[in-house]
């Protein structure tokens, strides 16, 4: 198990990490979230010794991570990097041997991975001859070729088309299913929501939210409430303390309510305004929890299901 223990890092005036701690467990998929500049990349790089921490430590199975441990780690950095003039197969074999594999077993593993990714026919192509999407696949393969126990991916979904996203999801699920501890950062919250067992949200270098996805939803003190109200949706006000209107559509009102809200009172209020066609009470989405955790006022957010790349993540 990987443990990030009280990590701290300061870059001049900027605090990148300020006491961040959490675990990445074998067989678990952990989504690592936070606005840009929250310190995600710094935390991930520190696992590989690419950042000297001002405080805290990275532990694996209870001891400080040593260079030898990193042979069993796989890393896909935010800024992708490969030897562009090197052939795909040779490149993967090379990275395998750098992780302590023999040439033969590294080459075999590269073959299998390329086959899985549908890139077998490109084994002899130079990386620079591949399309952007295929380069991304090779980059992932470079992180997987030595069959790591821990997989750390910085924005693995960025720049992928829907097919690429699905295939990435499948690979991550499959690795976690085989017992690999997987940790990845992303801004695509709906994707994380569907994929991850656990999420960590950091903001300004501090841990803002951490836990099992289901637990977090249940634990959340707010709920989503959706009321279908026909034409009355345009001007119905529930008029109950703590109940906020988030959005209105042509015939629906979307509300954010406390978990212990008096639902009957809201329903009564709605019924006096118009005919209630549907009344849905749900745990919050990850996106809502994210906004709450990083301190974006839910009311100021125009849409509940806002595209995370637009709403306040810059």
């Amino acid at each position: 198990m990987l443990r990030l223990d009280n990590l701290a890092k300061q870059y001049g005036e900027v605090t990148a990490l300020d006491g961040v701690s959490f675990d990445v467990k074998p067989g678990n998929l952990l989504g690592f979230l936070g606005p840009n500049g929250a310190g995600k990349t710094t935390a991930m790089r520190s696992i590989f010794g690419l950042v000297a921490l001002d405080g805290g430590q990275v532990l694996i199975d209870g001891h400080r991570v040593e260079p030898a441990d990193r042979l069993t780690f796989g890393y896909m950095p935010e800024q992708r990097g490969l030897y562009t003039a090197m052939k795909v197969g040779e490149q993967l074999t090379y990275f395998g041997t750098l992780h302590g594999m023999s040439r033969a077993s590294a080459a075999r593993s590269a073959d299998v991975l390329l086959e899985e990714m549908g890139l077998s026919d490109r084994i002899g192509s130079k990386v620079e001859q591949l399309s952007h999407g295929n380069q991304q696949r090779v980059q992932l393969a470079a992180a997987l070729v030595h069959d790591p126990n821990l997989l750390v991916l910085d924005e693995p979904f960025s720049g992928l088309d829907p097919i690429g996203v699905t295939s990435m999801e499948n690979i991550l699920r499959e690795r976690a299913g085989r017992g690999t501890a997987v940790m990845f950062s992303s801004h695509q919250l709906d994707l994380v929501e569907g994929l991850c067992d656990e999420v960590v949200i950091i903001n300004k270098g501090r841990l803002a939210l951490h836990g099992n996805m289901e637990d977090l939803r249940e634990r959340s003190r707010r709920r989503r409430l959706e009321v279908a109200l026909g034409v009355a949706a345009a001007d119905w006000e529930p008029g109950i303390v703590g109940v906020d209107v988030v959005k209105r559509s042509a015939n629906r009102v979307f509300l954010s309510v406390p978990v212990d809200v008096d639902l009957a009172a809201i329903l009564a209020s709605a019924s006096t305004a118009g005919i209630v066609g549907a009344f849905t009470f749900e745990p919050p989405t990850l996106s809502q929890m994210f906004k709450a955790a990083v301190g974006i006022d839910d009311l100021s957010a125009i849409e509940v299901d806002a595209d995370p790349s637009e709403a306040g993540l810059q």
Partner: protein
Amino acid sequence: MRSSRVLRLIAAREMKARLRNRPFLIGNAVTMAVILGLILILPRIIGDDPLPLGLVNSEGVTPAIENVSETLDVEIDLQRFDSIEAAEAALEADEVVGVLVDGVELVVLEELNPDLAFIVTAASADVRFAGRIEAAGVSEDQAALIGRPDQPISVRSLVEPEQLDEDEGFFGGMGAASAGVVLLFMAINLYGNTVLTGVVEEKTSRVVEVVLATVRPWQMMAGKLLGLGLLGLAQLGLLIGLGLIAATVSDLVEVTGEALLASGWVVIWFILGFALFSTVYAMGGAMASRAEEAQSAAIPIALIVLSGYFAAFVVVLPEPESTLATVLSVIPLFAPFTMPALIALGKAAVWQIVLSVVLTMVSTVLIVGLAGRIYAGAILQSGERVKLRQALRSSRDVIGG
């Protein structure tokens, strides 16, 4: 994983990458061809052309002329003409430097070439002497007793002329020293720049982040320098070997023990010089953020290398025994060029060589320590150009990890 294995893997990748890079191969092949060509052609250009001598009705003197010119080791190119007019036309066209008519008269255009004068006079004297002996009815044995002075005049020089030992030739002395310095300059410069561009490529392509996730910065740098250094060594060895073979085969010069020794010193000084300069090139590459910046990072390094090169050509080669030459040949950054020049000239005392090697090695250790730290601190910083102090400060980031 043991460091030795990591270094081997990285070095092997570096070598393979260069050996498959067509521009690199072509560039080097052209360089080698040019140098080999120079080695083969230069002595012919510099060496004396045979003296062209026209002959009209002088068959009787021809064997004597060939005899004398061979004794004097002056090549002579005999051209026979049927008429004086034709011979004089050739003389005016500068095709011959003189025309011997009827074995007795030497016609020249303006000035008499001294070698030619001596050869023709001596040969003609030989022929006439032989004729008189025959006319006098003296037997050959008696003629040998009377003799004819082998050398008509004795030559004495007040000033000792410069010793041009046959066996020093092109590969000994001055030629070897200049060739060695040029080779060292080209090899260190070429492979230093290969290190620089290689580091910048790794940095700008961001592959360095992937590699450094498993490999430590010093290993990444050392592996690269090892691979490229070995490649440079192989190329230099190949070049020297081909040069020596070409020289031997073409029979231009004799390859002597001295020549082999001088070549050996060039190889040794390539190793010392590459070790000294390559980490500085690696550091320069790590501090740049784009290929264009790498070029400007290379300028100060190139200036230092050039200074050593010029010190060798301007001071050491012309005046190897001067105090300045002695000093320059032990100064670490100059020594890789100045000391081999001094050695090839045969003017380096053992203590000088030892001092120079030791000083170079000591400064290499110091420079590798410093440049290695800067490399480690700068290689992972992208964005703008990395400043020296900033790189040193952040070097602790990654050096231990």
